[in-house]
């Protein structure tokens, strides 16, 4: 079990991570999300022993790792930018860790992993001749080949197209499950977090603002900013909040965050609104509306509907796509 207690990391005295507490039970996968520059990679580097802590401690199964150098920790880190060894072939990059510990059948294992990431037959290529996504997949295979007790993944799938990303996320999940590997994964893709991990930590400005089982975090973001980060489109307060909640058939509350898809075009919906703008996306038409008693809000419409700007429409509110705070959340 990995525990971080009050971990702080500073670069040249400027704090990048402040007082982070995290617990990660064995075999679980924790997704770390947060805006760019909030300190996600830094936490991974600190856990791997690559950045000195300016405070707090990282421990494994209760033993403080302070004096343990990186290569003795048994954690593998997939760097955000891959960091493949440029002069080693793909196969030797992937087989690096197994060969270090003289694992048997390295060649076979390497073949399997390359197959997994869709790069069978790339074994003899040099990293310099790979495409961006291919490089990232080799880095993923290399980290997996290490069979570490803790896997630290920094945006493992960010350079991949949706189809491949989804497939690899599922495969990754299966591998981690099967091997019972504990993992910490930084990602900016909510879907990916959902697919791969059990728990989720949301960071902001160097701090963990919320941590818990993934669905819980999603349903009940700790504060409006977290809600916005998690993909809630807007947060309404006071009267506007009450109006939205009323339309959703829920009692009034101090604030409510709504997903973009919470409001949808529905001729029999309870909320009246005027269309402000409309834009088509692959899946649906996205509207910005001026809803009576609420103000400006987002809504969605089916692809085949074409509500014009200025048109009056009615909207339904899906209570499952709201996050509600009973008392006023701190404005931060």
């Amino acid at each position: 079990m990995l525990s971080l207690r009050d971990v702080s990391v500073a670069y040249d005295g400027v704090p990048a991570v402040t007082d982070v507490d995290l617990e990660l039970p064995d075999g679980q996968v924790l997704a770390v999300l947060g805006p760019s520059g909030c300190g996600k990679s830094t936490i991974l580097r600190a856990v791997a022993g690559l950045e000195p802590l300016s405070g707090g401690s990282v421990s494994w199964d209760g033993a403080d790792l302070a004096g343990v150098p990186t290569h003795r920790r048994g954690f593998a880190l997939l760097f955000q930018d891959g960091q493949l060894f440029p002069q080693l072939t793909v196969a030797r990059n992937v087989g690096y860790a197994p060969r270090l510990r003289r694992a048997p059948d390295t060649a076979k294992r390497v073949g399997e992993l390359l197959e997994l990431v869709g790069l069978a037959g790339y074994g003899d290529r040099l990293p310099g001749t790979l495409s961006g996504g291919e490089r990232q997949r080799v880095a993923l295979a290399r980290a997996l080949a290490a069979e570490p007790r803790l896997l630290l993944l920094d945006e493992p799938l960010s350079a991949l197209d949706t189809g491949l990303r989804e497939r690899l996320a599922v495969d990754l999940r299966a591998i981690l499950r099967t091997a019972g590997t504990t993992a910490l994964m930084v990602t900016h893709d909510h879907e990916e977090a959902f697919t791969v991990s059990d728990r989720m930590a949301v960071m902001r400005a160097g701090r963990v603002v919320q941590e818990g089982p993934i669905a819980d975090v999603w349903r009940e973001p700790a504060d409006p900013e977290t809600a916005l980060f998690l993909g809630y489109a807007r947060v309404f307060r006071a009267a506007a909040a009450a109006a939205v909640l009323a339309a959703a058939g829920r009692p009034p509350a101090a604030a409510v965050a709504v997903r973009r898809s919470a409001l949808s075009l529905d001729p029999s919906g309870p909320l009246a609104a005027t269309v402000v703008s409309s834009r088509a996306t692959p899946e649906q038409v996205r509207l910005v509306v001026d809803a009576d008693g609420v103000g400006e809000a987002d809504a969605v419409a089916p692809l085949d509907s074409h509500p014009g700007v200025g048109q009056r429409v009615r909207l339904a509110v899906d209570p499952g796509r709201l996050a509600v705070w009973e008392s006023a959340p701190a404005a931060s």
Partner: protein
Amino acid sequence: MRVIRLLLVALVPLAILGVFFVLPVTGMVSRGFWTDGSFDPGGVLDVLTRPRVHRVLWFTLWSAALGTLFSLALGLPAAHVLYRRRIRGGSVLRAALLAPFVLPTVVVGVSFRQLLTASGPLGFLGLDGTPAAIIAGLVFFNASVVIRVVGGAWESLDPRPAEAAAALGATPFQVLRTVTLPALRPAVVSAASVVFLFCATAFGVVLTLGGLRYSSVETEIYLLTTNLLDLQAAAALSVLQLVVVVGLLLAAARARRTADPSLARVVARPRRLARGDVPALVATSVLALLVLGPIAALVAGSLRTDGAWSLANYRALETTGQSSGQQHALLVPVTDALMTSLRTAVDATWMSLLLGLTVAVVATRRSRSRSERRVRTVLDGLFMLPLGVSAVTLGFGFLITLDRPPLDLRDSPLLVPIAQALVALPLVVRTLVPVLGSVDDRLRQAAATLGASPFRAALTVDLPVVGRPLLASAGFAFAVSLGEFGATSFLARDEHPTLPVVIFGLIGHPGPMNYGMALAASVVLAATTATVMLAVERLHVPVGST
């Protein structure tokens, strides 16, 4: 803590530097400060006020500066052509351009003068005895240093930042100025500082080509020490030399410092020549002429006896001359001396590589604190000092400080290779540091996260990039040792002189074939060097095996 560990790692090199450099030099210099048993710094200071000293210092500085500048101006384009472009015979040219490095300065001086003297083929230039001739001599010797040190770093430079600049609209020249040269700056500054030291301590070149009108600090120290035994004045000049050198090293350390030295390194893959390479090709040709011209004159001279073409000079190299009735006297045949030189060079090479690699690694690891960084910088610079100190000072210093137990080393057969290794060390360090320093630390970290120990990580990450520069510096060390004369000639030896010593003996005395044999022996020395370099070039470092 880390600082102490760092010093522990550097202990062996530091101890060697202490015993074989610091101790002798301070011993010698302090003799100058003590006159008749009493401390007398005033006398030393007086020397420094002499107008002659000022003149000499000024000449030393400007001639060395110009020599460095021209070495860079010709060496950098040549490094580009020889290490970044695929040209036929490139490796031969690379090896040949290092050959001058080992030629005895007296021989080179004489060859140059035979070209430049009023009745010589280039006499119409009127360069004999002018500073221009001195500078040409300095460049002749040192352009190869620039080519090797910078070429080694340039070879594996990632082309993508240059592409990025071009894609933002930078012309090839702007790319060179804003991307390539800044990336190469540590290597360029390294090369420049070594070359400057070589030029500033040039002895034979200044004397021979300057027609005695010019003297440098080095020639003054030589005269004062070996001729006049004026230790006070010599000490004054030695201190002056050290001060200048330390100042230079500080400036170089500052100039080397880049905001972020890390560079991606790629597997070298030279491109074909393109139109944009024309200026570089022109510069390379000029350099080739400057280097190959005097060498051709030298080779031609070695093939002439009694006004006719013959191989007699070469045949004579195998004999001591005593039996044949020919009047050239050598203690040993030149071939034996060559073997001695090669053996010594092998020893000096491994010593300097071992020490140099340690120093370079210690100097380039990422520092965690400012004091740690400072310690590393000082360590790095410390090993440059032997280049900036006169061989005479060092030689006499050995004699008076390493003369009693436990350091009774005056007669040790190790003294010559160690002294040569110390002279070669700065070149090794300066070749390795820019490359090692540019290795992105994150690659080592990646290896560590996969379970590699620091040593293993170095094997994986550093060795492949440093492999070819390491070979290059091995070549350097070997060449320095083969060609070293100043310190070597000074150290006591038994019946086994090195080749430069024999050549110097040959050229310094009248004798029907002595001069021709000296030329022939020099050609052999240069050819041996070039051959070894070529062999080293062919030794492809096995990449991708660790």
